[in-house]
């Protein structure tokens, strides 16, 4: 029974121990299953999407996909050859070939061309809403961490922040429609989208900023106050500079969330298709913020639900999902890495 290596002090292999080993393995499997599922989703989209995004010859990146607008794809047979052309090319082809005049083609909307307007729209949406959210959020956090004393108002503020964090994004969408689109009459516009998204991430930004502000040691403030600085001078010179890196990194997570949300912009800012780029043909500068834009998440929704699944449409579907996932993943990774880095750097 006992092997020669065992001696009086080695741990006894009894049932309790076996149970424990089994339990550890079960928990381990559970954990790695979660990671595996995540990896599968990620891997599948990266694998399929990279076929669209990368090419086999220089410059190895499908630049058209990143620089052109979506187009309708025409699939047709000509001279016994199967051809696929985007809308513009198809017209040119018809004009060039007299024999091809009454050519019938199968059409798939949005399946040719690229996704540049959607990328541009998403960038605009994220930049605007994060500017608003950071301004409001950091100010609110400064008040809560530096000025506020326990009281009814502060309790009310904290409760609202907690509750706001749990409100579903689609409800923010409805709210945006009610307040910005209809009541303030901004219509479907960048501005309405900015504010809707900004208010949605506000709780995240406030909580993260407050945490960073609280992490600055009390001594920094006391030192400044003792030298006769006013409260605002103290905050400006001795608190904010040390809290800023933390605030920014945590806010990057907010950016990932803003970029990833579809529901709030569906009725407030996003168009399924728009020919003009946001900066084209503007009558006045004011018009810039009062126009709807295309957005990547909404584009994914449109191409995955409104057009059929087949070999022709798959390219744009996976390609868009890949680009979008990559953008969001990059933002998230930056935030996670930066945070870990900062944790090491600031030790007081």
């Amino acid at each position, binding site marked *: 029974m006992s092997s020669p290596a065992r001696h009086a002090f080695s741990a006894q292999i009894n049932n309790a121990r076996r149970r424990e080993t089994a339990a550890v393995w079960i928990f381990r499997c559970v954990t790695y299953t979660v990671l595996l599922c995540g990896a599968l989703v990620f891997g599948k989209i990266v694998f399929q999407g990279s076929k669209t995004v990368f090419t086999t010859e220089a410059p190895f990146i499908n630049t058209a996909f990143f620089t052109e607008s979506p187009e309708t794809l025409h699939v047709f047979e000509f001279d016994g050859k199967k051809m696929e052309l985007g809308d513009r090319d198809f017209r040119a082809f018809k004009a060039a070939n007299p024999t091809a005049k009454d050519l019938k083609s199968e059409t798939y909307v949005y399946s040719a061309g690229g996704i540049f307007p959607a990328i541009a729209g998403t960038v605009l949406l994220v930049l605007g809403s994060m500017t608003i959210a950071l301004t409001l959020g950091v100010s609110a956090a400064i008040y809560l961490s530096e000025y506020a004393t326990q009281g009814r108002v502060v309790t009310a503020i904290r409760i609202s922040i907690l*509750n706001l964090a749990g409100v579903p994004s689609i409800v923010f969408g409805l709210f945006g429609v009610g307040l910005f689109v209809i009541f303030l009459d901004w219509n479907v516009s960048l501005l309405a989208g900015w504010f809707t998204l900004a208010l949605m991430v506000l709780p995240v930004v406030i909580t993260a900023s407050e945490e960073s502000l609280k992490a600055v040691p009390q001594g920094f403030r006391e030192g400044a106050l003792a030298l006769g600085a006013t409260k605002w001078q103290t905050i400006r010179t001795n608190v904010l500079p040390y809290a800023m890196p933390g605030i920014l990194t945590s806010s990057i997570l907010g950016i990932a969330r803003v970029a990833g949300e579809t529901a709030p912009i569906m009725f407030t800012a996003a168009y399924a298709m728009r020919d003009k780029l946001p900066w084209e043909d503007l009558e006045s500068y004011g018009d810039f913020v009062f126009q709807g834009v295309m957005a990547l998440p909404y584009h994914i929704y449109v191409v995955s639900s409104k057009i059929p699944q087949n070999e022709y449409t798959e390219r744009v579907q996976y390609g868009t999902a890949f680009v979008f996932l990559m953008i969001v993943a990059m933002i998230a990774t930056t935030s996670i890495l930066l945070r870990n880095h900062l944790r090491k750097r600031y030790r007081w």
Partner: protein
Amino acid sequence: MDAPRPAQDPEFLVNKTRVRLLGLSFDDAVKIFFGGNALISVVVLTLITYFLFQEGFGFFGQNHRSLLTYRQAGLEYVDYIRQQETGHTALNRYLADLRLREFNEFVSVQKLDIETANARLAPFDDFAGHFADSVDPLRGIISDLTEQATAIKTKFLVAEDKKVEREQLLAVGKTDEAAAVKIDIIDFPAELKALTDTLPLYRTASAEFAVKLMAALDKAPQMPTPELAARLDRLRQLTKDYIATFPATQRLLETWDYTRPIPWYQSGLSFITGKQWLTASFWQDFYGIVPLFMGSFMVSLVALALAVPFGVGAAIYVNQMASAREQRMIKPCIEFIAAFPSVVLGFFGIAVLGETLRLLSQQEWLAWVPGFPFSERLNILTAGCLLALIAVPTIFTLAEDALQNVPKAFKEASFALGATRLQTIVRIIVPASLSGIISAVLLGLGRVIGETMVVLLCAGNRIAIPDFTAGLAVITQPVHTMTGIIAQEMGEVVQGSIHYRALFVVGLVLFFLSLTINFLAQKIVRKYRISIG
């Protein structure tokens, strides 16, 4: 002895007089600015409540009017008879199912070829045909009445529109034009008389229907196996029960009165308990939240059933069992999963997971799983699996926090008493952090219920209450959800219409649901803090 007086006041660094504006120093102004920003969250929460109410509240009045029209135009009357027909349709479905089973019996068990099997089924088809045709007299009446009732309703709606038009003209002071707008006054009693006059016709038709049904049942063929015979007996019983409801319908029709008022609470009640969400129909729109709520509920249930073991399990593993290196690797990975945009997951569900699950369900060796095989690739299960992936990071992070907050002394004391690691986890750590874990699960639930894109893309979007008689197989049915319906229909509705307002009321329900879940989670956490001391 005079001390030399200084030539001038000494220069201090801080002798600057403070600039005051409206009685505020610069510092006060800064404080008020920050305080004002902090108040924004309160303002936003109030505004959300206000605007949801403002846009949604009109629904109840409009719905009340719509229900009133439904009754006054006699649509309700026709629907009573139609319900009777629907009952028959359900029986026909049962019969079709029976035929399929008998056919399978012939082909798979008795190994007959398809033609022989169909020939054998000829008497059954004959019987089923009689059974199905027996409803014809009733159907004739229904289609006549439908036309009449629709005509009354249209007349009424046109008159209402004219009234609005006249009021608008009067409002801008065009009295003459307003007088020129002709409003037909609808003589409801006279119009409806034509409807209710068909009652004797209905009586004979209904009686004839009952007789024909019984006659058809008597000619039911012999079934090849006892199991199928039992099913046929069940059909007999169901039909008898069905016929027994006829007098009740008749009584409803006899006592039906278009002047009976609709109580004020009916509008809200029909929303909360309504089993139909029927919009843009030529007949009558119904706004009942039950199918949507059940859809959201079932999807969340499946998602949590998957996410809780995985999320909490992973949290326990990472916090209590994993080595430091594993911890450092797993945590960011799960945070990374949390960053997956939901629309990408929804797309994954449509493109990959739905089809994979469907193919998997058709494998022979998995036939024992309830609901397998299924043919709809987008259903509760598909959406639930993806939502689980969304909920796992939330539950994991919060549960891990809760575990982390258990004082180290608890663990050390347990080890000192000779407990193994597993015993310590199961008996000490998890119970001590249980309230934190529960609140993590609740917040995960909040995340799942509010999730839009995944359910919109993957839940199947069929507006129907899941059929719970199917047992566990219910999770393979397609549903529609509260979040999904808003996202899907909001873009198409006319602003200010009853449909538009109904969507806002759904939003209101979602909003308060999320507030409740949040409140519960906070309450549990607060309790937990005290208990640890």
